[in-house]
């Protein structure tokens, strides 16, 4: 296991498999995925709808448990942790950007960004959140609620929230999927430039070939297997 837990490896999987039950019997969504991602590397996961991209992302981020195989995040075997253990790991080392933004509707922009820091018990969350929102160009929108923001602005809040804790790994699931082409490009630029500034590892699930081509490496999934 030393090869996958080497100094530069921050994310790895071996034989990662996810099966779910269906009326027709067990259905394999992700099948025997071996993967190794180095620190600072950006990896695009592409494939057709139903290829298992989002499921793979969920397994790698510890949002879900595999039916078989193992996954390591910063050298820690996710399958050995319970739900709270995985949550704690995510709080300190992982950031997310979702296709549907997933902001907490009852919290303002700055409060949404403060959330990961507060959950990790960090002090000075408000200042840090304000600074990142400033960085993404939303200094004037700190106290707006998600419903008062445009789609692009919401995704910028989500990106600020993902980067505020300076995560080791950033998982982005179709981050431009709900945006028009122009806004989508701006968001992608922001995502890559912040990633470069912070030196984070990026796992990007996308349909968009041009977005995928901006990553260091592309992993193609076909019916749950790495093609």
């Amino acid at each position, binding site marked *: 296991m030393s090869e996958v837990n080497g100094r530069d490896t921050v994310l790895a999987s071996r034989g990662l498999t996810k099966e779910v039950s269906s009326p027709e019997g067990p259905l394999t969504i992700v099948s025997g995925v071996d993967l190794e991602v180095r620190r600072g590397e950006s990896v695009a996961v592409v494939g057709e709808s139903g290829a298992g991209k989002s499921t793979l992302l969920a397994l790698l981020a510890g*949002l*879900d448990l595999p039916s078989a195989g193992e996954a390591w995040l910063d050298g820690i075997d996710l399958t050995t942790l319970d*739900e709270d253990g995985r949550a704690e790991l995510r709080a300190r080392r992982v950031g997310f950007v979702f296709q549907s933004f*997933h902001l907490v509707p009852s*919290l303002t922009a700055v409060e949404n960004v403060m959330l990961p820091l507060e*959950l990790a018990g960090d002090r000075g969350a408000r200042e840090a959140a304000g600074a990142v929102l400033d960085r993404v160009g939303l200094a004037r929108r700190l106290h707006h609620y998600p419903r008062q923001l445009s789609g692009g602005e919401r995704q910028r809040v989500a990106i600020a929230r993902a980067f505020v804790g300076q995560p080791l790994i950033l998982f982005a699931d179709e981050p431009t999927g709900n945006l028009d082409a122009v806004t989508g490009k701006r968001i992608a630029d922001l995502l890559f430039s912040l990633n470069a500034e912070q030196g984070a590892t990026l796992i990007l699930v996308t349909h968009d070939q041009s977005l995928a081509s901006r990553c260091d490496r592309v992993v193609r999934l076909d019916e749950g297997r790495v093609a």
Partner: protein
Amino acid sequence: MTGPLLQGIRSVLRDLRAGELRVLVAAVCVAVASMTAVGFFTDRVGQAVAMRSAEVLAADLVVRSNRPIPGDYLDQAGEAGLATATGTSFPSVVVAGERTALADIEAVSEAYPLRGSVRTSATPYGEARPEGGIPATGEAWADPKLLARLDILPGSVIGVGALKLTVTRVLDYRPDQGWSFVDLAPTLLINEGDVPATGLIQPGSRVSYRQMFAGPRQALEAFRGVVEPRLGVSERIRDLQDAGPEIRRALERAQRFLGLAALVAVLLGAIAVAMAAARYARRQIDPVALMKAFGARQTYLLQMACAQLVTIALISGALGIGLGYLAQAGLSWLLADIAGGRLPAPGLRPMAAGLVLALVVLAGFALPSVMAIRRVPPLRVLRRDITAPPPSVWLVFGAAVATVLGLMLWQVGDLGLTGWLALGVAGLALALTGAATLLLWLAGRVRGSAGASWRYALAGLARRRSDSIVQVVAFGLGIMVLLLLAVVRGDLLGEWRASLPESAPNRFLINIQPDELTEVEAFFAGRDADANLMPLVRARLTHIEGRSVEGMEFASDRAGRLANREANLSWASGLQEDNRLTEGVWWTDPPAPGQVSVEEDFARDLGIALGDRLEFDVAGETFAATVTSLRSVQWDSFRPNFFMLFSPGTLEAFPRTHIGSLHVGRDDGSLLLELIRLFPSITVIDIDAMLGQVRRVMDQAAMAVQYVFLFSLAAGVAVLFAVVESGRNERMFESALLRALGARRRQILAGALIEFALLGVLAGLVAAGGAQVCGAIMAERVFGLDYAADPMLWLIGGATGLLLVAGTGLLATRSVVSQPPVTVLRRF
């Protein structure tokens, strides 16, 4: 069964199994249970009353009077072939050793009772058997409460006036024991032949005489026809028809009061029904769209919706009735003393009423949103963003208001009162809503400076603002009525007791004969006690300004009762300390006879004005007096006071007794014992014991009402569950998101706990404020007391709300926040 109906029933049964309907069913169930519990209980009491009304007189016809009744009715009845019996009753102190107790002495003749039978037992509350006769002379049968107060058992010798009697049996039941909701003095049944030996009956004593008759109906009617026109002024005739209404009225009042208490639960339950139904309807959107896409018509869908609601009503109604049946057992137990012990099994009527209530609540609060679903465009199967048009606000609001008004009218039975009640409820709900909104706004202001869990909780409250307000109001209302009953009642009673000086008289003395007066005065003077002795003449007010009082119409029942009963009159040369002149002038010295000073409320009730000429009848003799002043009287001074007080020289010629009052300290019991031994005809009434009894009855009644109000809390819980259910998706999503961002389960539960704890505290504070305001209004308007706000009420209210809402809130959200994040995030 046709397609849509079967389909509707099937879908309800499926949803029930899946747990989709639990909140809706629970809400209807609570509403039905609260109403049927009261219904079952009053039905049982009603049946008991109906069963006993046949023997409530212990005869078919009774002539009653507070003067001895001439014997010729008895002779006449004998000639008509009717069975007869006589009875005499009066209050008296019974002595056993060092102990005394006030009893209602019932002296009866051989043939008593003519209807029903007396039951006795060998030991207090032992197994009772019907008796064939009455106590032999020299013997007595005593109520177990009297034995307890005297601390004796059967076989003991007791003193009644000058007579010694042996208690041979314990009195379990007598047919004419009455159905008073407050029976202050326990009964001692003796033989009428023993009465003269007691020496207790003197001119002017408070005695009730009765002659009882029983026999074939025709003979009775003929007898009544002969006797009725000959009845004296103080004589009243009663048969079974006359005996019923009072009891029925008392029962109706109790039913109305408890019914209104239950209505609070019904209204809160209805809110929960509306919320749960809206969620249920939302979840029907997809299946309905699909059915429409496959060709289902609106009528088909409407029939299906109705079948669904009727099925839900039948299931939840049946559960509610079962729960109500169990709950009424508790109510009967709490009110055992007041309701009169053993009750017959309840009938079917409350069950039917429960089912109707379930249907009405669902029709009024759930049907509009369920009906709106049939208008979902079938395009929904292709486009998820298309949904059902919301139900018409007018329809929803109109149906709810009509249902609420209908339910109130059903309970109150009076349109005007319903209107006022509805206004009151609306005003109260509005005030509570205002307070809740303000408190939520204040809570929102502190959000910026709070930690993550706090901020998350406060943000949740603010986001679900209308839901939060509904919950604060629902719980606030429930807690408020409980606080009002539990704490404010105690406070008011305490205030009232505190308003009485320590040295206020606590014993009344009645039946002091004129020939004993000098000796009694000397007795008290020698012991340095002030007995406030006053003369008392019993008379009937016959005319006001020449108009006969009989048949006069009065503004209130109370006025009618006051006018038609024998009044206590007295005279005094000076105005008593606790009286104040409000109109006219007090008589000058020396006073001219023929003047009367009337208590102002009594004068107002009877329409008596200054300068009116009043005519009276005292044992067949008449006299008149002119009203020269009106007075206000401080009745709770516990000194002898009178509605009508005459100038000296007016009443002295008539038969009279004297009454008095004095304060007896805890250790001065021997003073009264000595008094009774020296003057056996004097009756001492222990006001402390009476107050104790009144308080016990009040406590029992309040406890019963509180018990019914517990349902309103259960309904509040149903509202909370309905709110949590309706926001279930949102909560699931938020907690999944927080978990994805690294929140631990404990942190999420802490956020939910804080949210509900805040809601609970807010509801408790609103409740405490409401209870204080209502308490203050009641104190000032109803009881005429200065109500000091109790700061503890805020604490008790807040703590009750906190525990209640936080507890149930956590219970309701547990399953919502423990979903794995990926399964939830994928759905959105």
